[in-house]
């Protein structure tokens, strides 16, 4: 028989290294001779979109078109250390460093422009330096040329707020900020085989502010898939220290057919310490998926599975045990 059930899960997640460990990102913003912006950071693009959103942050901070911003992160000899691409920290930490370096560069550009135009009230708008009091303008290329054919470069450094907890009581402020994630899931359980089918899901994801909504949505889909695998498929299956499931034929990750459609809701509540209010989401997007699935399985068939993954074998056994 097939039975359906609903389940919810919600979590909070403290981003960053935590516990007072110096959590530092560095960035260099540069105006090159062509009048383009280069951002140098040691932040890895692992697929999460760092290369795209850090460029967006720089473009926003400088008020230049995003197309003229290039992120350079592939070489340790020319990039400053921006910490690891982990702990959901690149958007928040390195995003802040990039923003600071971009803002510093903007100030520098304005200083050069003031000298060139002999005007005091200047701003950059969509990549053009404009006067607030006259119709004089300068391009970024003009600035680049005026600065002696060299490069204008500015550093940005950001350190996250974290304190070491008391070793006896665990009291303290280990992480900041915290990101929220919640999932609702509907499952269908085949009580004759123990197979769990995820019918549909919805996710509400706190992002502070979404730098790039499409990338956030992509993270949610991917996070859910990994949570789904965690809940019902994945186990390296150890036998005396040996990994028995050591290939893709037996270590099962979800296929396209295993994934439900997900209604993705981005919740914005800007974080004042984040770059334009943004927080990290790369890990949170995954976390509540598995518990929501477990709760939905219970709702469907009335048995609690306290051990994951919930394989057909385990579920059928639990159902049988309940029948007595």
């Amino acid at each position, binding site marked *: 028989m097939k039975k359906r059930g609903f389940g919810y899960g919600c979590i909070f997640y403290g981003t960053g290294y935590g516990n007072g460990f110096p959590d530092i990102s560095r960035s260099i913003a540069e105006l090159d001779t062509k009048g383009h912006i280069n951002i140098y950071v040691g932040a890895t693009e692992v697929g999460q979109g760092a290369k795209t959103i850090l460029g967006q942050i720089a473009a926003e901070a400088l008020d230049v078109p995003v197309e003229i911003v290039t992120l350079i992160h592939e070489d340790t000899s020319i990039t400053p250390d921006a910490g690891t691409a982990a702990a959901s920290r690149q958007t928040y930490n390195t995003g802040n460093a990039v923003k600071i370096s971009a803002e510093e560069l903007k100030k520098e550009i304005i200083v050069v422009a003031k000298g060139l135009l002999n005007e005091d009230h200047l701003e950059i708008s969509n990549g053009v330096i404009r006067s607030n009091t006259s119709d004089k303008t300068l391009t970024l290329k003009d600035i680049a040329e005026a600065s002696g054919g060299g490069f204008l470069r500015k550093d940005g450094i950001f350190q996250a707020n974290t304190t070491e907890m008391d070793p006896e009581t665990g009291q303290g402020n280990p992480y900041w900020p915290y990101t929220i994630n919640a999932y609702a899931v509907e499952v269908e359980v*085949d*009580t*004759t*085989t*123990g*197979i769990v089918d995820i019918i549909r899901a919805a996710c509400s994801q706190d992002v502070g502010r979404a730098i790039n909504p499409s990338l956030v949505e992509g993270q949610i889909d991917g996070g859910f898939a990994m949570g789904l695998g965690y809940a019902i*498929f994945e186990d390296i299956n150890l036998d005396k220290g040996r990994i028995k499931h050591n290939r*893709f*034929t*037996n270590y*099962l990750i*979800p*296929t*396209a*057919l*295993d994934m439900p459609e997900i209604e993705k809701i981005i919740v914005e509540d800007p974080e004042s310490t984040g770059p334009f209010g943004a927080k990290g989401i790369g890990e949170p997007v995954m976390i509540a998926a598995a518990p929501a699935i477990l709760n939905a399985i219970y709702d469907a068939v009335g048995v609690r599975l306290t051990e994951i993954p919930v*394989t*057909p*074998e385990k579920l*059928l*056994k639990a159902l*049988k045990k309940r029948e007595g």
Partner: protein
Amino acid sequence: MDIKNVFQAKDVPEAINLLDQYGEAAKVIAGGTDIIIALRENHVKVSVLVDISSIKELKEIKTSDDWVEMGAAVTFTEVMDYFKGHKEYSGLIEAASLVGSPQIRNAATIGGNICNASPAADFVPPLLALDAVLTVEGKEGKREVRLEDFLLDKGRVDLNKGELLTTIKFIRLRKGQTVTFSKLGLRKALAISRLSTAVYLEIDDDEKCAEVRVASGSIGKHGLRERVAEESLKGKNLDKAAIDEASKVLSNEVEKRLAGRSSCEFKKDAVEGIFLKAVEKAMVHNGDGSYCAMGTQYYPRAAGKE
């Protein structure tokens, strides 16, 4: 892998000659989806590969008045395309469609699936339920062998030195006859069968089970006919009690067969569900409580219960 010689055979005689010439050193390759892994992991140690995937005559499916005959190098995708829309053959379509993935189905062949003699071979149970007959060709000529007799042990089939499996045939299905398949995989694609059953069902005008053949996968050394379940159903009116009874009988059989194995507890239970699904697919319930074999034209088809 230590391959010294490779051949793309153009026709069956050439393939047979090569197999004869190289004997134990040679192995047939068609879709390659199993043998390449086996070669790389040194489970199969041969130095000669004879590729039969380009032999035209082995890539045909033909339906005559009495028989359906499929070449051994027919791929699962070709099976799915050929039988598309023919509901009486849903078991063949479904078993083919649950093999691996599109890429694997585009390459893997039905002959390979049979000759590997894996307990989990998806296409074997429906062919067993259809009581398929294989043609094997060698230097000495052709012979026919029933699939059930062809499967000797896990990974071992009745192929002599220099012989090649060329065709697989079964009696064409008529009104009131159908074959179905049901599989338990751990995910919806790229899933190795944990358990599968196929049912061939023939219902007479009195709505009784005139003939039934049940076959299973992944609960024995290779695909197996499940005769106790067949005996339990034969001649009966296929009501819930009869079907439940047969699934219990099958479950008991599985319990006996797998006694002492860690998978026993799960499989003896799950086989009931998987068998029921195959039987249900084979029957189309009519509004008035009567039923007919799926895909036949005796009765107007009511909404199938899934």
